[in-house]
């Protein structure tokens, strides 16, 4: 279709397809260095433990583990495992996929949640998914526990925990 023939409005999808366009599909790939803090956290997940870091100055037990306390601006003093149980701080019930396409009516809904982990300082949560629970039954304040991948399947990623379920 020539540009002078393009109507001011009301282009049909057929007409739209025929207009000249430039397209480009970028290939962007990154491999971020985990470094000390994230490295220790992910290694620990591989071992079936959630690792926190402790700052002596502010007394916070922080999640995820980190090499420096961003509030006191000093190195953290030690790394320590915390429990794999916690409390739902907030959650959402997702009816769409990652790419915003709709889930079919019979597909299970995703329930991402912030989970405040037992043993860490108040407000120190991690982001994960809830599972083995009816969306309508999820409540803020609900107690949940991590469901881990089998040890030989873990690869040092937050998905080494499959989801958190009520207990």
């Amino acid at each position, binding site marked *: 279709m020539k540009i002078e023939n393009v109507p001011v409005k009301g282009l049909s999808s057929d007409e739209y397809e025929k207009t000249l366009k430039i397209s480009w599909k*970028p290939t962007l790939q990154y491999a971020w260095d985990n470094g000390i803090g994230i490295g220790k956290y992910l290694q620990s997940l591989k071992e079936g433990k959630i690792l926190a870091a402790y700052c002596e100055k502010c007394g916070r037990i922080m999640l995820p583990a980190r090499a420096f306390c961003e509030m006191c601006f000093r190195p953290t003093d030690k790394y320590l495992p915390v429990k794999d149980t916690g409390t739902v701080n907030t959650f959402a019930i997702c009816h769409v996929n990652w790419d915003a396409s709709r889930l079919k009516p019979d597909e299970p809904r995703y329930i991402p949640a912030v989970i405040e982990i037992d043993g860490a300082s108040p407000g120190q949560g991690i982001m994960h998914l809830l599972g083995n629970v009816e969306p309508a039954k999820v409540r803020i304040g609900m107690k949940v526990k991590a469901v881990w991948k089998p040890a030989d399947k873990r690869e040092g990623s937050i998905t080494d925990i499959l989801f958190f379920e009520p207990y």
Partner: protein
Amino acid sequence: MKERVAIVGIGVTGFSSVSPSISFKELTYTAAVKAYHEAGLHPKEIDSFITASEDFMEGYSIFDEYVPDQMGAVMRPVQTVTADFIQALGIGCMMINTGRFRTIAVEAHSKASNVKTLNEVKAFALDPVYIRPLKENADFLAGLEMKRFLEETGNTEEQCAEVIVKNKANALNNPYAAHAASLTIDDVLSSPPISLPLKELDAAKPADGAIMIVLASEKEAKALCKKPIWIRGISWFSGQGNPWCRDFAYADYAQLAAQKAFAMAGIANPLKDLDFAEICDEYSYKELQHLESIGIARKGEAGFLTQTGVTKLGGLLPVNVSGGSLGVGHTYEASGGMKVVEAVMQLRHEAGIRQIPNAKTGLVQSWRGVPTATGAIAILSNE
């Protein structure tokens, strides 16, 4: 500038081809701790924070959200600018000149090794209609600029090779440098072709590293610091953006920025008034082209000045004693930062074996790289 602005602290990690043992946040934290220690300030005493970064190099959209932790800037005013470090430095100077800020921290880092498709990122900067469909490696723009520059000015490929030999040798004296080497002119001339006349050794190789500096108002600087380094002039320009209608013989952005920065700093004769210059040498010929555009060398004479030793350490006007991007490494948005750090060390007379005797005033310059015609210049001085 209404109020004089000084650098009161610098922090720099070393530069290296890869840095697998440390995350970008930990890398920046390392530089930040050093800078705040030098300035004698806790980050809570910094009034505002700036990071120079480019989302495509970081692999994050809205990278602003990922910078506060490592700068000590949580719940503080932070911004990122998609520009070179020296442009971020200029923004810091303007902020202090508003009278609302006494101290500003400016940061830039490179984790170029983490970008697995660096050439795709470079291609993504090319015009999608008029250049990208040609599907050529972005370095071809440097090749064709080099060709026209040499043709028109009479500078030679041998003189470009002299730049590489000089800068990589200078880098041997710089413990921070990633790509120091002892080379001969023949090594350079026989290096594999990329986009001729551009050869492999003509292009700076990427490096990882982080830089943080602390800026302060005059009053604050005098109270904080025994050796404040003053920013006497600073400017940046974008020239002809469309590469197909550029005058490749000179860099318009560098000429414009130099005129402005020299006027601010009262520099009448750069060759006489400057003690050294840290010039963008992302490609060998760029050092020569920038020297001529800035007015340090006359048109067609930068290669001769290089060949006769005027720009080496001990020469009349040493250029890139740090090793430049060719010797230290190409650090993308942090490129100007590496040069500012070198200038501060020279002006404090803390540059060790590569110290330029009695250095008082220096120029630092950056360029945003292919395909841009954008660059910045700052004039730094210890008086």
